């Protein structure tokens, strides 16, 4: 841990020039939004998606946009602790807690609020992509069978074809007894239900 901390500090110091300072008590916050443009980012690729990204300070107090290279800046921000949010359709960004130091001429320290991860530089990357639509499952026999209709048909078929098989394996004595019972209870057999069945 002791080895890591100086390294982190070094990173912070080296990145300090990129967080340039302003005059008196107002400072500038400069940062960058990086959106991976890999082959994995398919889906609703809106044209000019970089131009539709907004960066918001303190819940909309200041709003700025990205330059073509992804850089953004807020001007004349007083020292203190601020919150930066990035709004980009299709991506989930964690809000960033930004501390602008009054003593160190507007040096900026940043940390993601979602996972409390410190940022050595104010480079914001999406935590994940957001898929707004359900993916329609391709047509498959399984999904058809699993639907209520499919189950109905399956059950029906099972009754129609497996039951006689079961009946066949039954003891003829028992079978006769069961038939007797059914007749006495007046449960109509399948054949008697149908118009042709009434004839026998």
């Amino acid at each position, binding site marked *: 841990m002791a080895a890591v901390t100086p390294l982190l500090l070094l990173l912070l110091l080296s990145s300090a020039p990129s967080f340039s300072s302003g005059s008196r008590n107002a400072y500038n916050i400069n940062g960058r939004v990086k959106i991976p443009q890999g082959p994995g980012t398919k889906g609703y690729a809106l044209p000019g998606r970089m131009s539709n990204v907004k960066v918001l300070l303190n819940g909309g107090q200041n*709003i700025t946009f990205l330059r073509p290279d992804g850089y953004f*800046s807020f001007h004349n921000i007083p020292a203190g602790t601020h919150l930066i*949010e990035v709004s980009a*359709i299709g991506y989930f960004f964690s809000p960033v807690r930004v501390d602008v130091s009054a003593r160190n001429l507007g040096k900026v320290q940043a940390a993601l609020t979602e996972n409390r991860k410190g940022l050595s530089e104010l480079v914001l990357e999406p935590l994940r992509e957001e898929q707004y*639509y359900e993916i329609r499952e391709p047509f498959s026999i399984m999904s058809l069978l699993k639907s209520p209709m499919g189950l109905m048909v399956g059950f029906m078929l099972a009754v129609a074809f497996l039951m*006689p098989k079961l009946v066949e394996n039954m003891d003829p004595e028992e079978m006769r007894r069961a038939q007797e019972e059914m007749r006495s209870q007046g449960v109509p057999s399948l*054949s008697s239900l149908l118009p042709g069945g009434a004839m026998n």
Partner: protein
Amino acid sequence: MAIRSFFLFILFFSSSLSPVFSLYEDQVGLMDWHQQYIGKVKQAVFSSQRAGRKRVVVSTEENVIASLDLRHGEIFWRHLLGADDVIDGIDIGLGKYVITLSSGGSILRSWNLPDGQMVWESSLQGPKHSKSFLLVPTNLKFDKDNVLVVFSNGRLHAISCIDGEVLWKKDFEAESFEVQQVILPPGSDLIHVVGFAAFSQFEMYQINAKNGELLKHESASFSSGFLGQVSLVSTETVVALDSTGSILLTISFQDGKISSQQTPISNLVEDSLGPAVIIPSSVSGIFAIKTDAVTIFIRVIGKGNLEVVEKTTHEIAVSDALSISEDQQAFALIQHASSEIHLTVKLAHDWDGNLLKESVKMDRQRGLVHKVFINNYIRTDRSYGFRVLIVMEDHSLLLLQQGEIVWSREDGLASIIDVTTSELPVERDGVSVAKVEHNLFEWLKGHMLKLKGTLMLASPEDMAAIQSMRLKSSEKSKMTRDHNGFRKLLIVLTRAGKLFALHTGDGRIVWSYLLRSLHKSEACQSPIGLNLYQWQVPHHHAMDENPSVLVVSRCGPSSDTSGVLSFVDTYTGKELSSLSLDHAVVQVIPLPYTDSTEQRLHLLIDADKHAHLYPKTSGALSIFKREFSNIYWYSVEDQNGIIKGHALKCKCTGEVADEFCFDTRDLWSVVFPSESEKTIATVTRKLNEVVHTQAKVVADEDVMYKYISRNLLFVATVAPKGSGEIGSVTPEESWLVAYLIDTVTGRILHRVTHHGSQGPVHAVFSENWVVYHYFNLRAHRYEMSVIEIYDQSRADNKDVWKLVLGKHNLTSPISLFSRPEVITKSQSYFFTHSLKAIAVTSTAKGITSKQLLLGTIGDQVLALDKRFLDPRRTVNPTQAEKEEGIIPLTDSLPIIPQSYVTHALRVEGLRGIITVPAKLESTTLVFAHGVDLFFTQLAPSRTYDSLTEDFSYALLLITIVALVAAIFVTWRLSERKELQEKWR
């Protein structure tokens, strides 16, 4: 009871954890619609690019900059700037960059014209606040780099057009100097800055445009002072009015020498007109002054000789000048004449000759022309053609060309103040509007296509045909009431004072009406619309009447100006009547009573705390008298931190002898200590909310009784220091206190303090719970808390024997005057985003479980199940609790992308979310408005009471066929078997 348990069963069934709102991509647009607007146009610049599509770039009062297609009026791209980032000026630089100056001249941005990508951004500071000007000279170059000249905050900047670098700057620090114009004479390297100083001094600075060096400074004193703006009539002459508004000063500063001439207005016009104002215009040689009734155009001849060229009493609008050749300037003039507008295009030096004169029929509901922007094009015969873009009183934007309206945009809908709904007419003979299916063949073809689609046999073209068929389904856009209550009219009131009725099926405008009562008049100087209320909702015995809405407005921005009521029929869109009130409207209380014609009773509270009853009929009065002692309301005084409860006392005493006027009395007041608390949010339950049951069955077959009262008020206060923005206070000096107050007795039922938290607070109150969103400074994250309030006085009714023996207290009357035995439960969770709005779904009978609708800072609407905000959540719920549907406790609320109601869309500039129950219990209608509009249907517990859109009828058909076939096959088999048996 059976039905109830059935519903409970269904609710339980549907309470799986997967996101309830989820959409397939091909379902977009089936039940939802999205409309994009920009707001009232402030400034328009035409792109002069020869190649490519013609565009116009506009800035609006909603802080939008947008690039529109000049042929169709569609939006190419658009950006909504922050609420404080008001646009001061726009222009096009180098033909391919849109330059915007905003935030009082302190932010300069450049955007790529074709795609709207921001190219650079500069922050401009200055010594003091001043007017700001943005100038894009065409000929001023600086090392091959085009230069922008910006005057803002008392400083003149020259800025590179390529990268926004400041090339030079020059301060104007003189204490009282107020800049009026920045002039760039064409063909020279000079910049003239003119302005006033110390009330009566006229100052002129001449600056070298190459390096910002001050070349000359002249000043002249005018003892009579100045009034308002100056108008530039040439590059070296300005016209101003003296402080009395009756003498015109023509000031020229040729070669750095200031000379002036005074001309009393009475010399130009015989009859006295009263004080005038100068209308700023950029047409050289001509300026206009306006008095109450008359607009006068005056030409400047030579050095300060003035001549009246036209005097008109019509409403008139003038465009800026457009140079059409080296030395010719044209401008457009629009005059109103009853149902037409007359457009004339003139040359600046030739008033009497018209380049173009056209008359265009104009819908009266658009009101007056507020702004005109002119653009020219070259016709095939090489002559000049003109097109004008006009902005109307109702904020709509129209393009006129060759005497016709080429396109129009209803941009008034970008600024909605209030929304209500109205039912459509019942289907009767001759009422229905929509066409039914054309013929049997078409119908069959459609169904065959659908069948192919379900069987996955359709080709891509077929799929496209199916999709368009689904989207255009005439069923959803019919003009009659439907069985499920999905078709309604959304009545919206816009800031321009126009009412629109939008159809929920496809979002089209059914009718629109510019309220006459919101027109400027003698009695009513600056009328503003306030609210919309349902005035008459006929259902039983008044079926023949049309429903109507009440529009409450007042004559000025302060709350003590007199009010105006208008009543508008929601079927026809006609104003039934309007009332100019002799009292103010501070508060409107819709009462839950209707008179014999189903007009809703409303109580209007004026500034002197008198209550006025509307409608003013004897029937209403008798109903009101009956309920006289049951009417309570409260008022919130934000500045003093006082919440007061009121009741009615007696008829009005004093000079006003009015039957419908009542005196009021104060019942109670809650005073928050001003040094430690400041109210920032108050929320009550929606008046029309329906609660299905008071009992809530919890685990172990236990029952809890919700404390359901219409008179609960949620109040949030913060430390005065913490009422500012995030980051302005430390956690130690900020706190947030939430109260639940009974508004009849003023009793505080619950109070909770969140240390180290601050606003803004967004809250929603429903049934027996309130959910609020605030900022936790210690964790530096947003938090949402829930408070649920339960009635303990009924807790001992659980014993069945007591119920059987009649020893329960369920029938005992509930009075708010007895101290309620309540318990509250609350819990807090982290939430990622800032919120702009919060709402809760509402259904017809209140059975369906609820969802919170959160309008996030990214202008999306997220549906979040209320079960995530249940104070009974624990880290390890017991088996019984799990069965009840309690979700294990997590520290933050989940954001499931599929539960974004707005899916991949943004409701740019989101301001409000409205939910309206459909007739179908499972479904609620959601309308979100901001600069954009979005509408959709939601089923928080899935559509358990109807078949979903993607229900496969084909599969049902196939199943039935298969079953019938199976029956016959088995019958055959069994017959054969029986026969064999008999033969055996």
